[in-house]
């Protein structure tokens, strides 16, 4: 790595990471409502996205690339919006959109069941629970604690460092396991000279994807599935127990207060 070429893949990546960090810092709520700073942050974020897209690998065809780009952009932009939204309800809605994007990415990767499951379970169940709690607990108007962040600079830096390291490591991936630390190549898998084994439908890409997934789950991972079921039961019971205990405590306190009041009035 002699000299720093800003337009080398490494340089662009670094620039993108820095821009992403800066944009997050500016976009995170910080008390003062300076609109210009938020616009600047948004621009920086877009610049970061552009950098990442520029260093992305070229997929097979334009259609593939376009689809992947669209769904991943949806996921990433809505994820960013979730994190920086002032109002938590808006954040929840943006998260729903992020889930949609993620489902799209999963579908592009061939995980049919998981893509749908993400929508159904996450967006349908978990997110709705979050919204219920928000309705119960969120004060009218913007709460002060929604308008401030906790150490935005350090958090943005942490995210940036992590992203940088991960991107670096991803860039160093190569096809052959033995050359694990070779320079990232632009042109795709390098060791295509290995003799191609018998062409079978890659399992996840087969037609009966869900059936095979079910077979895999209840075949090799039966015990884990059962354990997951038990975990769900335990979570259910636990949640009820915690609430019940809370109710008991409240009822007891109220009874004590009533008894005290009666004894005083005597």
């Amino acid at each position: 790595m002699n000299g720093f070429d800003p337009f080398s893949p490494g340089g662009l990546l670094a620039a993108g990471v820095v821009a992403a960090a800066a944009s997050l810092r500016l976009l995170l709520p910080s008390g003062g409502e300076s609109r210009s700073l938020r616009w600047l942050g948004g621009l920086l974020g877009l610049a970061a996205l552009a950098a990442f897209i520029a260093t992305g690998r070229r997929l097979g065809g334009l259609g593939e690339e376009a689809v992947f780009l669209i769904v991943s952009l949806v996921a990433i932009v809505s994820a960013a919006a979730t994190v920086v939204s002032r109002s938590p309800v808006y954040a929840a809605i943006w998260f729903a959109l992020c889930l949609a994007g993620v489902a799209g990415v999963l579908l592009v990767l061939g995980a049919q069941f998981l893509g749908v499951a993400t929508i159904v379970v996450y967006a349908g169940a978990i997110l709705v629970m979050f919204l219920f709690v928000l309705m119960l607990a969120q004060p009218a108007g913007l709460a002060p604690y929604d308008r401030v962040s906790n150490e935005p600079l350090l958090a943005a830096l942490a995210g940036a460092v992590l992203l940088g390291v991960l991107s670096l490591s991803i860039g160093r991936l190569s096809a052959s396991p033995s050359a694990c630390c070779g320079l990232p190549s632009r042109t795709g898998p390098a060791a295509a000279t290995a003799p191609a084994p018998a062409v079978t439908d890659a399992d996840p890409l087969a037609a009966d994807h869900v059936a095979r997934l079910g077979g895999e789950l209840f075949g090799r991972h039966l015990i884990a599935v059962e354990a997951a079921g038990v975990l769900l039961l335990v979570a259910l019971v636990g949640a009820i127990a915690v609430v019940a205990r809370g109710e008991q405590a409240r009822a007891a306190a109220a009874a004590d207060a009533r008894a005290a009041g009666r004894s005083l009035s005597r």
Partner: protein
Amino acid sequence: MQELSPTSLLVLVPLLPLLGAILTVALGRRLGSKAHLPAMAGIAGAAAVAVTLLVATARDVGPARGHGAEPVRPVEMISTLWQWASFDKAYAAPPGSPAADLRLESQPLSRDAALRPFSIPVALRLDPLTATMLTIITCVGLLVAIYSTGYMHGDPGYPRFFALVAMFVFSMSMLVAASNFLLVYVFWEAVGACSYLLIGFWFTKPEAARAAKKAFLVNRVGDFGLAIAVFLLWMTYGTLDFHDTISSQGVIMPGILGQTRLADAGGYVGGIVGTAICLLLLLAACGKSAQLPLHVWLPDAMEGPTPASALIHAATMVTAGIYLIARSSPLFMPCPGALALVSIVGGTTALVAALIGTVQNDLKRVLAYSTISQLGYMFASLGTGTLLGFTAAIFHLLTHACFKALLFLGAGSVMHAMGGVIDMRRFGGLRRVMPITAATFLVGSAALAGVAPFAGFFSKDEILAALHAKGWATAHGGHHAAVDASPFRPASFAGEASATWGPTAADPVGLDALDSPATWQILFWMALVTAGLTAFYTFRAVFMTFTGPTRVPEGAHPHGGHDTHGHAHDSHDHGSHGHHAHGHEPQGHVSYESPPAMTFPLMVLAVPSALIGWLLFSTNWLGHFLSATPSFTATAVASTATPHAFHMDLAVQGTIAAAIGIVVAAIGHLGRRSDGPQLERFLGPLGGLFANKFFFDQIYAALVVRPLEGLAMLAALFDRYVIDGVVDTIARIPLALGGIIRRSQSGLLQRYALAGVLGVLAIVVLLAWQLRP
């Protein structure tokens, strides 16, 4: 018994009291009121052995021969117990010192003479001087132990007292029997420690604790002198032994006071080193024997129990200084200036102490100053440097032990009967109610005052004779020849002249100028005046206590009620000077006499106080006996021998002085109430000077004590603020650091999570850096 030779018996004298002390410490609590038995058995055994040894040594010395016969040969018996330390090639002797001396008529030294061997044997030596001292120590110790069974009866520290007394007898016996200067130093310190423990016996009383501390610290000054003297002795003579030893290579190592060196005319050094050694030994003796300027501890030491005062501060411990100088007499002979200084110190102390003693109202204080004064006499006699002077000093030591112990025990008897009151102004006319005590006290006082034919008369007379002879000899160029008789010149001195002795080293310090005839004349007259003062204050005390109307203070114990007294014997009431509690007149024939345990020793001691002077003087047994001591057979000392004679002129002078003193005392106090107008007021400003002890305590407080307290305060401040400050500051650093770091613990969980994440990221980045291609 042939197998029990004196050398093997000698070790029993210190050993038996030591065993008694150990047994008392171990079993004292359980024995209760019989706790005195082990100690008394030990001391009694030691006394028996000491008397046996005295007889054996006297037999060895042989009968007295007339003056002019062949010189007495030295008598000594060495008993080496074990080797404490021994080095073959220890040091190189400084050139010119006797240690490097090759003139000694012994085997030629080995080729390897550059490194001389050095050893400390634990050896005891029995010679006439030691035998005499051992007898005094053990016999007086035994009588004091018997007395204490009555005096200390009922005291909660009863076992401790006897353990200490036995310990003291052991230490003092070892001190006089040791044949090595280092051992002498060890036991010098030991007797100082026993003295401290006995003075502070009732340590809950602040005055007693303070007095004990004062005694020990003043003794320390003297001990310092002795230590430096020991160092110089070793450097000069190459050994610390008294006796000759044979080293492992077969070389005879001449001891400092061994036969070889004593026979050699030039065996002892003079000059600066010799004078330094002598002066340091004098300093040590002053500390232990309470001479000017280190005398301040002895009067305060009366805070201790009276039997302890009788044993330690009258008869034995304070005589350690006399013993040391007598033993080291050959070392002093080449330094006439130092000898003269010894006499000057002694004479001055005698006079000053006698003056202070005239105005004391506390019976024990009178006796304490009397002790200091009599010790001064002994020093004056020692400083004459003649055989007569040395033997007179030891003779006076012997008689003084008898009558001073008697007087102290008598004072204790009075104090015991009067319920702890010892201020003479508060009682009087006790001869009617305490006849035995009164009679024995009178005998002791007569002995002290030098009334013929009691013991003190003869020993004091010998001292006066020594002083006069020295003065005469100095005036006539060192000769001890006699000149024609004349009323006030010594007619009885006859004999050959003695050669001037020793290396005629120049006198660098100018100290020899002290050794002039004028000095000795002045000292003689000082001694006479002191004799008169001694008689005065002694009989003043006798008249105030035992004559006059019989008065007894409140709280006095009649004969039937003495068992219940506690231990709070106040040794003096500083209460009111003028009018005291009036006391009361006892009715009828109530006796306040002490129990037999206390009167028996009084009666026993009265006998030698009356007779021993005449007995020893008329036969000259002691003089002849002591002349066989190796130290006194040194050529220098033995050559000053003079024939034994009774000097009538000096006897008359002494008696006149004593008579004047007694008469003046009688005029003032005989038959009068003792709380009448006091001598102090009669003397005016002089009385104030005497009563304030010549302001020695105040001067010392200003010159020594206050600066030392200031230094101690500075040291304490330094310790508290600098040293502790450094340590505390170092201790505060972690606290401060912690305080800074603690502020990051804000309780905000997201900050904690952020810290954790940053740490993990640091590790990840590090790993990625390590694994880069």
